[in-house]
C-alpha cells in the first residue's frame, strides 16, 4: 500500500512539473515597480495604473499582443528580464552605461534629472557641499541617485534603503543630510514635509537622464518594434495625452517655479 501511495505521488509530481510552463506564448510580459506615482502605481482597487501602465497597454495594442504587468522591485527588474521572466521593462528606468552592458534600451521616451531633499538644519546649501566628511546621504537602492552618490560623493557616508519612504523619514528625522532622487519625487515630498525639509531642485548633472524601455540583448525583433511604437506614439500625441491625464498640476507648478518640465520625449 505504502509503495502504491509513493508511486502515485511520484507520478503526480512529474505531471505537475510537466504542466508548469508558460501558458500563452504570445503574451507580452511587462515588468515595473508599482511604487513611483504617477508613472507606476496601483489604483484604489489595487490594479496597476499610471503612465507606464497606459504605455504598456498601448504597446500591446500596437503589437497586437495581450499585456501582463508584473510588479517587481526595482533592483530585481533587470535580473527578471535576463532570466526571461519578463520581456520588457517600462519602469521610468534611466538609460545608463552600466545598465546598457546587461540590457538593450529603446530610444528615450522621457527625461529627468536628480534633485535633493535636504534636512532643514543641515548645512548643505548646494550639491558641492555633499562631498565632505560627516555628511550623510540617503539613497534608494539601485536608483540613479544611488549610483550618482557613490561616484561623486566618496567622502560622504551613503546609507542605502529599500524604500523611498524610509529615505524621506531619515531626512525628516535629521538622520541624513539629504536624499537624492528624481526631481518630481523630491518636489512632492518637500510639499508634504515643508516644516522639516527643503528642496534643491536646480539641476546639477551635466546631462539629463533619459528614460528608456529595456529588453534582452538578443531580442532584436522586439527592440525594433518598441522603437517603432515610440515613434508612432509620439507622432499621434500620445505623450501629451498622458501628461494631460496624469501630470496636469505638476506641470503648472513647475512652469510657475520656472523649472524645466521633464516629461517630454
Amino acid at each position, binding site marked *: 500500500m505504502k509503495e502504491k501511495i509513493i508511486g502515485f505521488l511520484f507520478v503526480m509530481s512529474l505531471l505537475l512539473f510537466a504542466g508548469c510552463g508558460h501558458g500563452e506564448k504570445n503574451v507580452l510580459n511587462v515588468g515595473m515597480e508599482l511604487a513611483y506615482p504617477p508613472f507606476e502605481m496601483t489604483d484604489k482597487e489595487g490594479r496597476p495604473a499610471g503612465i507606464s501602465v497606459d504605455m504598456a497597454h498601448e504597446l500591446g495594442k500596437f503589437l497586437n499582443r495581450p499585456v501582463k504587468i508584473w510588479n517587481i522591485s526595482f*533592483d*530585481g527588474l*533587470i*535580473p527578471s528580464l*535576463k*532570466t*526571461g521572466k519578463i520581456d520588457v521593462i517600462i519602469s521610468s528606468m534611466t538609460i545608463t552605461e*552600466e*545598465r546598457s*552592458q*546587461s540590457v538593450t534600451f529603446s530610444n528615450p521616451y522621457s527625461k529627468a534629472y536628480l534633485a535633493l531633499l535636504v534636512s532643514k538644519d543641515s548645512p548643505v546649501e548646494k550639491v558641492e557641499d555633499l562631498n565632505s566628511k560627516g555628511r550623510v546621504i*540617503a539613497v534608494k*537602492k*539601485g536608483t540613479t541617485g*544611488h*549610483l550618482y552618490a*557613490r561616484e561623486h560623493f566618496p567622502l560622504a557616508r551613503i*546609507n*542605502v*534603503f*529599500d*524604500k523611498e519612504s*524610509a529615505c524621506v*523619514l*531619515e531626512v525628516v*528625522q535629521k*538622520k541624513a543630510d539629504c536624499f537624492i532622487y528624481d526631481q518630481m519625487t523630491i518636489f512632492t515630498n518637500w510639499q508634504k514635509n515643508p516644516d522639516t525639509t527643503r528642496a534643491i531642485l536646480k539641476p546639477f548633472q551635466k546631462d539629463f537622464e533619459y528614460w528608456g524601455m529595456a529588453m534582452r540583448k538578443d531580442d532584436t525583433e522586439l527592440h525594433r518594434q518598441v522603437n517603432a511604437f515610440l515613434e508612432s506614439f509620439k507622432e499621434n500625441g500620445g505623450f501629451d495625452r498622458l501628461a494631460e491625464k496624469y501630470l496636469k498640476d505638476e506641470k503648472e507648478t513647475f512652469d510657475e517655479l520656472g523649472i524645466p518640465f521633464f516629461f517630454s520625449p
Partner: protein
Amino acid sequence: MTKKWMRCFLRESGREAPSPCPSTLLNALLVALFILFIFIFSFSRLEYDFHWAGVWAYRAKFLRGLGMTLVLSFFSLIVSFLLGSFFALGQKSRFLPFYFFSRFYVEIIRGTPLLVQILVFFYVIADAFRVQNRYVTGVVILSLFAGAYISEIIRAGIDSIGETQLETARSLGLTRFQQYRFIIFPQVFKRILPPLAGQLVSLIKDSSLLSIISVSEFTLNAQEVNAYTYSTLESYLPLAVGYLLITYPISNLSKRLERAFSYET
C-alpha cells in the same frame, strides 16, 4: 524481519549515526549525488549568463558585510540568551508584575512581524530616546525579538521536568535555587539545545532584515553589489555560502554539547 540488503540503509536504533563503514559512505554519497543532480539539472536549464568577474571585484565589500553580520550576531546571541533566560524566569515567577510583564513581552514580540518592530523601534522609540546609532539599535531589536522565542524554549524545558522530581527535591530540603541548580538546569540544558540552536541560527539569518534601516551587514552589501553589477545570482549565491559558514559551527557545537550533556537515566 528486515531483509539483509536493506540493512545498509538503516541505522542501529539508539545510535546517533552509524560508525564509519561502507554503508555510511554509500548513503552519504547517494544523498550528495541526488542534491548535485538537482542543482546541475536546474542550472543547466537556466537561461542566465554568469559573470563572476564583476562580483569578484567587490570581494572586499562582501567580507566587510560578513564581518558586520558576525559582530551583530555575536552580540545579539549573548544579549538574546540573557533576555530569554531572564523572561523565562519571569514566566515562572510568583511575583505577579514580573510574571505579567514577561507574558506580555513574549506575546507582543512573537505576534508582530520583525520588519515592523525594526521600523517602529528605530524611527519611533530609539528616536525619542535620542539613540542615533543604528548598529546598537539593531542589536537591541534582534535580541528582543529572539529573546522572546528563547524565553519560551527555556520555559518549555523547565516545564518538561516532572512534578515528582521537584517534590522529591523539596522533600530533601533543597532550596528553590538548589532545585534549579542541581535538578532542573542539568536536564533542561540538554533538552532545549536543539530548539535553542535552531533559534540562534534563525537569529543570524534574521539579522539580514536590519538592512531596511541601512545597517551595512552581509545581505545589504550583497544587494548593493547586485545593484552595481546587475548580476543577481552571482551576488546572492556567495551570500548563501557565507551564512552557512556562520551557522554551521553553531549547529555543530550544539550537537557536541548535546552529547556531552547526555546522562544515562
